């Protein structure tokens, strides 16, 4: 069941290039600046130290909204979905620019699909959304990511809070091999230092596994290693693990690319049941999947040796039935990529 789409206006999808103002963009945060961004030298500069994920330099503001996710006790009440807003995101690996001032709005509770050929920066964009990008030593970025209006790259914000609020599921299912299914599901609590009673953990395990539509398959072997599951089950275990820390946004990077059609179907059902509770952003190479699960869709493209950009984004139905850009039309109809 999809969200009712916006009333039909003349243009349901957006071609960002039309709207791109000349050089109006957020300040570069990176040490390295591209030529076209070097004119904005006066903005604040923050160089990431990838060796310091604690982000020790930042002070912690107890009044910040993210504080809600930082209580040292786990709370039964799941946090509501939050809107995510990427504004003028540019990204570099060393000197190579791979994303050029990409802006995208992901409203609370909706499912957004990112599509586009390989190497056009979808994963990079996704990893910027929960501050995983800066783990690569040579990586830098510019722009703003607003979670409920708060910039997650603000020096006042804790990197760990941002990552807990914005969960991530990876292409390759990666349950922790030394933990059982039960422990894997609630690993986030232990890792983030959250206290929870055994009853609360029990609740969280069943709740998260149910949300990931895995409960019935594994309830008889909760204490067996998570690595003993099939590929599709492992991926759903990873989804359950992400859900257990009650994220407000869930990012998924090609979660089904290694799965068979049946497991893919189950993951899609999971996404369906999470709609409204969590904001979901999913990268997929499967056009039918994008069409089935997403409310809005963004088409990324990187022409030869240029950074990736969003060519067109908007309502999924419109993107697939009636795209305005010829390249989008070709891509969604399988004519290239």
């Amino acid at each position, binding site marked *: 069941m999809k969200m009712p789409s916006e009333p039909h206006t003349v243009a349901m999808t957006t071609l960002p290039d039309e709207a791109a103002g000349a050089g109006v963009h957020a300040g570069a945060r990176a040490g390295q600046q591209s030529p076209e961004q070097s004119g904005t030298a006066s903005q604040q500069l923050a160089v990431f130290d990838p060796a310091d994920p604690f982000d020790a330099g930042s002070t912690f503001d107890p009044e910040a909204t993210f504080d809600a996710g930082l209580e040292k006790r786990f709370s039964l009440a799941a946090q509501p979905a939050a809107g995510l807003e990427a504004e003028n995101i540019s990204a570099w690996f060393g000197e190579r620019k791979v994303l050029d001032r990409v802006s995208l709005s992901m409203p*609370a509770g909706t499912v957004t699909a990112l599509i586009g050929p390989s190497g056009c920066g979808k994963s990079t964009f996704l990893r910027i959304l929960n501050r995983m990008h800066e783990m690569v030593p040579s990586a830098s970025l510019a722009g703003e990511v607003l979670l409920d209006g708060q910039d997650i790259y603000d020096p006042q914000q804790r990197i760990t809070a941002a990552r807990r609020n914005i969960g991530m599921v990876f292409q390759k299912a990666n349950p922790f091999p030394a933990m059982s299914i039960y422990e894997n599901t609630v690993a986030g609590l232990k890792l983030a230092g959250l206290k929870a009673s055994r009853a609360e953990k029990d609740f969280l395990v069943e709740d998260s596994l149910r949300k990931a539509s895995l409960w019935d398959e594994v309830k008889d072997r909760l204490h067996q290693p998570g690595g003993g599951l099939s590929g599709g089950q492992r991926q759903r275990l990873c989804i359950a693990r992400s859900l257990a820390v009650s994220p407000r946004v869930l990012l998924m990077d090609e979660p089904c690319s290694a799965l068979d059609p049946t497991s893919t179907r189950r993951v899609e059902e999971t996404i369906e049941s999470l709609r409204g509770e969590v904001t979901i952003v999913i990268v997929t190479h499967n056009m039918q999947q994008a069409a089935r699960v997403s409310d809005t869709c963004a088409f990324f493209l990187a022409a030869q040796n240029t950074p990736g950009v969003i060519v067109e984004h908007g309502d999924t139905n419109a993107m697939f039935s009636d795209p305005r850009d010829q390249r989008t039309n070709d891509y969604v109809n*399988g004519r290239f990529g």
Partner: protein
Amino acid sequence: MSLIDEIAVRPSAPDSSVPNRTHLPLLDKAEADPDEGRIRLGAARQRSLVLAGAALGALAMGLLLTVGIGVIPLGWLFAVSFFWFLVLYTALVALREPLPVVRDGFVTVLLCSAGVAVVGTLALVVFFTFARGQDALGHINFFTRDMTGTGPLSGLDDGGILHALVGTLEQIAIALVMTIPLGLTTAVFLNEVGGKFARIVRTVVEAMTALPSVVAGLFIYAAVIMAVTRQTNGFAASLAITVLMLPIMIRSADVVLRLVPGNLREAGLALGAGQWSVVWYVVLPTVRSGLATGVILATAHGIGETAPVLLTSGFTGVMNVNPFSGPQTPLPLAALDLVRSPVPQMVSRGFATAAFLLLVVLVLFIIARLIGGQEAGKTTDGQLRLMAAQSRRDLPRIEENYRRLLEQRNRDLDAADIPDGADADIPDGSAVSRNATTNVTAVPIPQDRASNTTMQEKP
């Protein structure tokens, strides 16, 4: 016209004029024969015959050349036979097979012989040690007494090496207490922090593995015994062993830590964990068995060291349980001391001591394996049964807790809903949906933090 469109316009109704283009094999398939014949896989009979023939021929040739005509001394029998075995085997294979197969067979034989040589040498060493020491090993007092009052002419029913066992265990225990934390933290530092300083440390550690053991002994002798204690003692010996064990521990831990897939670390960090909780809860448990192997390697290396303890532990035949004062001889040193004696009983005791040392290493090895466990995620059948039983036992508890807390949460949600019911429906355009699986109304909780935090306290 694209490919997709082309496919779409093909007629889909079956056309009876053309013969069937697909087949349905299930329609005419008989029941499976209960004793369906199976193909026997494995090496051809002929290959094992060739192997046996070549071995026999080579042995005969060796015997002929050594015992038969006597052109080669008997000691060379094995070397000569092995050489002839290679020749004969290759020739026999070459009679029937093409060149690649011959090359393959030749290399296989070489590799297998290397394995056999290693195992054989080891077996010889162990066998020789036990054989020479069997007289002393047969007496129970050998394990329960020290050498107090045992003269050169005393029989084997007098004296023993309990003092050396105590010395070895205490010294290796002290050395491990220092090596394991220091080695682990250094390895974690090398992997998690990195940078220029870490590269320097890594180089130093690598250089330290090549440190001659007598140098470690001399170092402790000069720095501890000459300067501080002024007498040899067990603690100085364990310090000397630590110097040798540390680089081995660091190196092996470093190698296994480097093998931890980066995506596990990423998964941990993506859950909002700090770097050190990822190391503690994810990285270290994942490589626990590899780290245990590192500890075993270091222990095996340290426990048999003779040169450093020669200078630091001192010689004594008397039991000394205090490692901090007075000489305390460990097993390898006791063995060295005993076999140098001209008296046959003492030599027998020396070999028995060496054999006993082998047993001690074996026991420590087994203990470390038990503690270290198997590779993460691998389980034996027994463990699997235990886990299954535990899962079955806990399931009712989990389901009960789930039901109870779900009710509680729904009550809380309803309670929180009533006061701000008017503006609670759609605060920021997020969808209101009902979760099909859990039956929880997923009404977004009002953003106002006050109602959010009081949620748990409400009845």
